[in-house]
């Protein structure tokens, strides 16, 4: 890469394990730091010593200790988990479809989840978090089925542009339906929360549900990573190498639904992480999905933790929805992709 003329040559797909290792461990270190910063910063002014005490010698009568343990720590952890989940979800989608625009928010997956959440709020308003998450999974599935259904019926297949358009249309359709439900059953306020997207009301029980789901998704994604690297060479090549492409894609899609559904059920629609992070990760670490999957998880977690902290700093003491912050980061990137990819689509 140092040689300027090499850019004109056919660049061999490379993997950069050293950079990947650095990202993995350096990223984790920065992630811990930013989680600390996220816990430190907030509407109530709490100094570092108090935070330390709340961990080491918890005093139930102290408000500061309550805030730290009950609000800020679960919030920061949830942001990290959700960011990691959305990023991995986007990574798998882009890897399986070889489509640079594939990501949960563009493909209507998040819209599907929010739609089912709207229905759940009406049908069973007292449902537990776990049940809500099941609804979100089903919704994510519906979103994926519709978008891929459009692609498979269409004569020219699911091109990147068609994917973005189908996602836009499905999102418009499903969010109109959810809004109509919200207005009729008077749950607009509850639903607008999911549309704004955020981790401000996260509690420990959310983290307790998120963590195992994320772990399962992460492990399966890692097991699939090698197959996805091969799949990324094209379906025909993968089949020629003896891969059961349907099995890989099916399992991969299940993982995507699992990760996205869990994220949306807790934090609503947070866009663009699943689009931006996989691109950046591939740019940094190369083509090997065994490295891309864990690195994208770390970077996604980092992005959402920082975005969540920023969302509290923009307009204190009010919170800007974190989905807005990620959109403002993600849109320029999307525009860059649209300009670059505009040729081949």
């Amino acid at each position: 890469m140092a040689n300027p003329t090499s850019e004109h040559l056919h660049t061999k797909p490379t993997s950069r394990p050293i950079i990947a290792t650095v990202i993995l461990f350096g990223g984790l270190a920065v992630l811990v730091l930013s989680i600390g910063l996220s816990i430190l910063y907030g509407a109530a002014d709490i100094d570092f010593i108090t935070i330390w005490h709340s961990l080491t010698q918890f005093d139930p009568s102290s408000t500061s200790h309550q805030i730290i343990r009950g609000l800020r720590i679960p919030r920061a952890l949830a942001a990290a988990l959700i960011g990691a989940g959305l990023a991995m979800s986007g990574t798998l989608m882009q890897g399986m479809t070889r489509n640079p625009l594939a990501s949960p928010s563009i493909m209507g997956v998040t819209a599907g989840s929010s739609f089912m959440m709207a229905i759940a709020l009406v049908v069973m308003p007292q449902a537990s978090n776990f049940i809500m998450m099941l609804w979100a999974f089903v919704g994510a599935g519906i979103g994926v089925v519709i978008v891929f259904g459009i692609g498979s019926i269409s004569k020219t297949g699911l091109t990147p542009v068609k994917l973005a358009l189908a996602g836009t249309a499905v999102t418009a359709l499903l969010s109109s339906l959810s809004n109509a439900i919200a207005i009729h059953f008077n749950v607009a306020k509850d639903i607008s929360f999911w549309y704004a997207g955020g981790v401000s009301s996260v509690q420990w029980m959310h983290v307790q549900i998120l963590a195992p789901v994320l772990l399962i998704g992460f492990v399966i994604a890692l097991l699939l990573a090698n197959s996805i690297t091969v799949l990324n060479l094209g379906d025909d090549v993968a089949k020629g190498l003896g891969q059961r492409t349907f099995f890989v894609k099916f399992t991969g899609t299940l993982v995507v639904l699992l990760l996205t559904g869990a994220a949306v059920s807790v934090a609503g629609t947070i866009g663009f992480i699943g689009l931006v992070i996989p691109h950046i990760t591939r740019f940094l670490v190369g083509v090997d999905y065994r490295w891309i999957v864990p690195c994208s998880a770390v970077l996604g977690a980092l992005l959402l933790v920082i975005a969540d902290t920023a969302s509290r700093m923009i307009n204190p003491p009010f919170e800007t929805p974190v989905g807005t912050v990620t959109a403002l980061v993600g849109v320029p990137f999307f525009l860059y992709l649209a300009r670059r990819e505009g040729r081949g689509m």
Partner: protein
Amino acid sequence: MKTRTVGTKRMLIVASILITVIIGTFLLNLNLGVVSISPINVLKTLFGQGSEQESMVLFHFRLPRIVIAILIGAAMAISGAILQSVTHNELADPGIIGINAGAGFAVVLYIYLFQNNMAEVSSLSVFLLPLTALSGALVAALLVYLISWKNGITPIRLILVGIGINSAFAALIIMFQLKMDPNDFTRATVWLSGDISGIDWTYVLALLPWVLILIPLAMYQSNVLNTLQLGDDIAKGLGTNVERHRLFLLLIAVALAGASVAVGGGIAFVGLVTPHLSKKLIGPNHILFLPITALMGALLLLVSDTIGRNILAPSEIPVGLVVSLVGGSYFIYLLMKS
């Protein structure tokens, strides 16, 4: 010449059918709802013979709303038709490529900066709002045009960039919306999803001049649109000043969308669906096809508003949501067909 007259005849037939259906929907609209007025009483009331309650309901609540639905429907439809012809893009619609979102953002910003709350929009503001929305729509259109420019503009890049700009403005709208108090937040949400329920005659007066000037202006340009549709090279060969005409027509499209958003909020998909349908019915000649598109837009919005007002009564569904359901499904159908 013969095909021309056949086309005109067909167009007149389609137009009269559409107008009949519009009048039918109009009467049905008045017949449904909390206060029902029978068709005969509507006519009586229109000629000043109705009861006091009926004329109050008719003239103060129903009629301005119906007129606005017709005006916005026609304006959005023509806006979409122009965008599609000028950019050679079947999928262009002011709601999809961010023009509505830009206009919406400008209005939210205006209300946030200059208005205490959304309920008491002063009558001066009613007339200033279309201008505000227009400036937002122009900024959005300019951004889309500039960012998708790379040795010319391909239809696909334009749409993708438009979707991106749309999300950016949507995010900005939420940012400012959250700084309003909760009541205004809800009101702004309803308005942004496309709502014409609180309409009175001032809004009609605010929108009317835009529609009355810009739609005939667009129709006057039918021949230019026909030439532009053939592609830039042929249009240039035929002696058309492509860039100048394109810019002028785009301005008309943006202004129509902006003024509609100022009054009715973000109503998407009207501009996408209606040009398709009327092209199917009447062919691509703009002289015939633009009037039909306008009528179809008016009808689509009127029907959607009638549905939205009654289907889940007593709660009203904003007209924009109904249109999105209809238009979104049609859009998906188009994608599957292509």
